């Protein structure tokens, strides 16, 4: 009995020793992998989704009674689900049939720290079954004096990041929807101008489709492309360390 007890004790101590040794040898590797993580962690935590139009404004209307304001609300719900499963916090400018002002929609993103803004649209023109992402064009506005950025030029400082986000999402869209452009497009979208965050518009073609089911069938693919694009973009976005200084694109 005592011999058996001693044997098991010996086996246990040996096991414990080797275990601790192995653990110690692995520790430094683990430590080096963990410690730099917080410093390079992306500042992107919040995604603001903006289903365009709503309320008295149905947006683009198709012959079959398809309304842009309804489709984008469906799309927003699917994108929200996908993004939340990737650990993002998702805010929506509207979740019902209402129509906040352009400024109110922008303000929701501007009030967050480390947010991106996606405004969702369905057009009445264009090749059916294609999707395009847009950023504001670069109009080289004079640099603002002091730390205050005029409200109507809010987007200018974020253009490089917006383009990077747009290209990431457009690349995913082009793979899924043949005939879509390979890169992000530019347009003077009113909604983007007042948004002080990386911001793009996404527009699906189109409401003038024969059957609404064809459009509904596109939505999961569009949502998936957006989620993958946002995930790919995530490491490039670092929150500004100095308040009021817009973040730049990381090399």
């Amino acid at each position, binding site marked *: 009995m005592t011999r058996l007890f001693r044997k098991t004790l010996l086996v246990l101590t040996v096991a414990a020793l080797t275990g601790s040794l192995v653990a110690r040898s692995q520790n430094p590797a683990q430590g080096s992998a963990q410690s730099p993580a917080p410093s390079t962690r992306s500042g992107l935590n919040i995604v603001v989704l903006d289903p365009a*139009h709503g309320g008295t404004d149905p947006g683009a209307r198709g012959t079959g009674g398809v309304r842009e304001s309804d489709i984008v609300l469906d799309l927003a719900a699917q994108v929200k689900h996908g993004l939340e499963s990737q650990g993002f916090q998702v805010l929506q400018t509207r979740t019902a049939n209402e129509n906040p002002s352009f400024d109110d929609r922008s303000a929701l993103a501007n009030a967050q720290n480390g947010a991106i803004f996606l405004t969702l649209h369905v*057009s009445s*023109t264009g090749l059916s079954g294609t999707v395009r992402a*847009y950023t504001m064009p670069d109009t*080289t506005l004079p640099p603002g004096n002091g730390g205050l950025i005029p409200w109507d030029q809010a987007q200018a400082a974020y253009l490089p990041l917006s383009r990077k986000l747009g290209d990431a999402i457009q690349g995913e869209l082009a793979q899924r929807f043949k005939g879509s452009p390979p890169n992000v497009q530019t347009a*003077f979208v*009113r*909604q983007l101008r007042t948004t002080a965050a990386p911001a793009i*518009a996404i527009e699906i*073609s189109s409401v003038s489709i024969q059957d609404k089911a064809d459009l509904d069938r596109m939505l999961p693919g569009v949502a998936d492309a957006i989620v993958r694009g946002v995930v790919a973009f995530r490491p490039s976005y670092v929150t500004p360390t100095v308040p009021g200084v817009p973040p730049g694109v990381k090399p």
Partner: protein
Amino acid sequence: MSPKWRVRILVGLLVAVLAAAIYFPILKRRVKRQAQVQQTSEEQARRELVQSLNTNSNEPKVKAKLFWGSDAGDGTLAPTIVELPLSNDPALRAKQVLNTLLAGPVDAELRTLPSDAALLAFYILPDGTAIADFSEAMANSVPSGVQSEQLAVDSITKTLEANVPQVRRLKILIHGQEVETLAGHLDLTGAFPVSAKAVAPVVALPVAPAALAAPANAPAVSGAATPQKK
């Protein structure tokens, strides 16, 4: 006596109601038709007034480059060369090319601007900022969407860039008013860059000799307009 009268009055009233029921819809239709005629004639009068500028054939015919939709239908523009009698005065010249642009291409599918829209006024300020005032149809009839609204504006700015080099920026008004968007998407509160030079810091133009310089520059400019993008 009294029951007989009652019946007569009742019959009379019934006839009156029936007559009214038949006559009112006819009247309504007539009023509607009249209103429509008036509206189209107003639009037509406006167009004819503007058209008279175009048909001033005293001007030498110039190869103007106009931008309508491309055959691909993918939201891009394609240039079309049209021979037009164009004025040497930049503002007049701009009106002439924009009215031709509004009139539309041979293939109506390639239109970029609504067929019922009209150009109400066009000015060029000394700093090269042009102001174009369009009728309400421009905002109400253009297909709503980021792509279609940007295409409409691009067709205007590209056509101006190709034919009226004096224009550097374009501000669009709708019926004399500044509006927030064209049809819910495109921002009209700012001025659109027209020529590549507009992006660079504005070179202060000598204001006084602007009128003097215009006729002297114009022949050289009109000659340069077409081969510019070859």
